[in-house]
């Protein structure tokens, strides 16, 4: 199980740095998402892997072999571009079999393969259609089929779903994930949408605005145990509370004290830290009740979208957001007093 290895990759475009000190090991058969805000270098990293750019420094290895300087057309990877890049002068069938024609595969094999691939992406019988006659979702599928035609060693996707509307995007995410599981091809998807990454990935690589990899792990690990405040803030929504360390299990926030389950290493009394608490872990009780690990405040806003309810609590200038199901909705209205309960196990302490 060697898979793809990136060793100490740097990439500069003139004076602009696009990727810094990237070290990654991506095992076979996984669905990996590069996740980060725009400009974090995730697309550059994908293009380096595809061979469309060369790294300024570092090595890329596939199953232990150096491919850093192998040109893109000799890597046998399949790539789906953000603009899809379907060839406008070719029919759907010709687009799908382009990689086979380039490799001088027999015409009958090409036709068979085209039919198989179009069947795979649920576009059977579309061989002779023109690209301009397809809808956005259909073009998407053609681009996917085209990239998979040669059974690629790596399947690379550069924000391929960003142009689709929300409903179609969600169904394509699911479809793409199922397709990848069926084929077992190692897949790397670049996205800035954390929900998309959570839906599809076995492994998420979070990149920060400083063009470094911030955290690598399974989607739930990253959600539950963010490594720093950037990851906590970027993945899902999070309440980030500034405070300072007081003893082994206590954090002082303003004039209130919070008990936490775990303290990161290298934190001593007086160290300033950030506590991250997910909104769904916070429950709100009406009135100013005296409880352990709670913050008192007034309800400033309630966002009720039907499927869940968000309650905004103003605790002496500190905004706390709690999320609950409609059934578990506390009996409060804006202007009421409320108590937010923060269970110690849900309070993740991050070094600021």
């Amino acid at each position, binding site marked *: 199980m060697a898979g793809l290895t990136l060793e100490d990759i740097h990439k500069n475009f003139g004076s602009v740095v696009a990727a810094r000190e990237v070290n990654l090991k991506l095992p076979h058969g996984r669905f990996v998402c590069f996740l980060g805000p725009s400009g974090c270098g995730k697309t550059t990293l994908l293009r380096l892997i595809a061979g469309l750019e060369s790294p300024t420094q570092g090595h890329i290895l596939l199953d232990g072999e150096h491919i850093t300087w192998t040109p893109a057309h000799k890597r046998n990877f399949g790539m789906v571009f953000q603009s899809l890049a*379907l060839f406008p002068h070719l029919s759907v069938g010709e687009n799908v079999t*382009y990689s086979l024609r380039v490799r001088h595969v027999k015409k009958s094999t090409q036709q068979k393969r085209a039919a198989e691939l179009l069947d795979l992406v649920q576009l059977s019988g579309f061989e002779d259609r023109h690209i301009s006659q397809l809808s956005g979702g259909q073009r998407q599928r053609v681009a996917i089929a085209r990239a998979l035609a040669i059974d690629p060693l790596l399947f690379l996707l550069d924000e391929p779903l960003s142009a689709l509307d929300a409903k179609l995007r969600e169904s394509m995410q699911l479809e793409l994930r199922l397709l990848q599981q069926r084929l077992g091809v190692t897949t790397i998807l670049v996205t800035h949408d954390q929900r998309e990454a959570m839906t599809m990935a076995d492994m998420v690589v979070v990149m920060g605005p400083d063009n470094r990899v911030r955290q690598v792990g399974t989607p739930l690990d990253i959600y539950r145990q963010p490594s720093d405040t950037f990851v906590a803030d970027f993945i899902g929504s999070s309440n980030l509370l500034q405070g300072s360390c007081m003893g082994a299990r206590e954090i002082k926030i303003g004039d209130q004290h919070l008990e936490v389950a775990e303290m990161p290493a290298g934190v001593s009394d007086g160290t300033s830290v950030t506590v991250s608490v997910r909104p769904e872990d916070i429950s709100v009780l009406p009135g100013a009740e005296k409880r352990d690990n709670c913050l008192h405040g007034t309800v400033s806003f309630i966002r009720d979208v039907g499927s869940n309810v968000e309650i905004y609590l103003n605790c002496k200038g500190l905004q706390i957001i709690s999320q609950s199901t409609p059934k578990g909705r506390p009996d409060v209205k804006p202007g009421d007093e409320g108590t937010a309960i923060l269970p110690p196990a849900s309070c993740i302490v991050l070094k600021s």
Partner: protein
Amino acid sequence: MIGERPKGIRSHLPVAYPALMLGIFFIIPFGIMVAISFFHRQPGGFYIPGFEFTNYKNLYTALFGRTLSFSLFVAGLSAAVCVSLAFPFTYFITRMRRRTQVIWLVFLMSVLSLSEVIIGFAWSLLLSRTAGISNLMVWLGLMEQPKAWYPGFAALLFGICYLAFPYTVLVLYPPLSRLDPALPEASQTLGASPLRTFFGVIVGSMRNAIVAAFVMVFVFTLGVYLLPQILGRPQHWTLSVLITDQAIYQTNMPMAASMAIFFMFVSLLLVALTMVIGKGKKIKTQ
């Protein structure tokens, strides 16, 4: 066309002025020319109104046939040379940085400011034995003695291409600069070498632009009439030269008019044929 069809007379008003100008300066003179082509020629330089096909019948000569086919051949060949040089050239310009692109375009525009006359005489000088480039070659030790490279077919073709090249680039520039840079990249990730990508994807997806540029240069070079006289020998004179000769020196207006009209119809036919071929195979709709 974008948007709805204009409704009512008022929404058509903006086209009235160009339509009027087109009518006055193009359609009316063309109508006069069509009429003259059927008039009777009076030796001595005038014509009298009439309706006869004599002028068209007189076209049926070996000289006219030879000159017509030579004109079409020269125009076709120079269009082919221009497009095949300008296409890769323009493609590489559009891949450069914005600033470099602007410098190249300004340079090409400045070549456009030179008229056919200046280009013709400049090249006749540069290709001459006494003051031309061959003297430079001798000085550099590349040639034994200076040589005259004009008049001749190669000099004529060179001159026409020099004249038409900037136009070709300007016609190809907009579609090529709009070409999605991901297209050639996609072709590469699918296993095509850079050369195959260039011909398979870049040339392929730009087929309409290439045909348009070819037709433009073809039509443009058909009208060239100074360069053949400056850079070519009499056997390289094109139909434009022959028409000028009939109209001005032979004072045979009806003959010149019939030549011009016949020439125009043959060219239109060829342009239409090129368009049909350029469209290529139709991908089945529905």
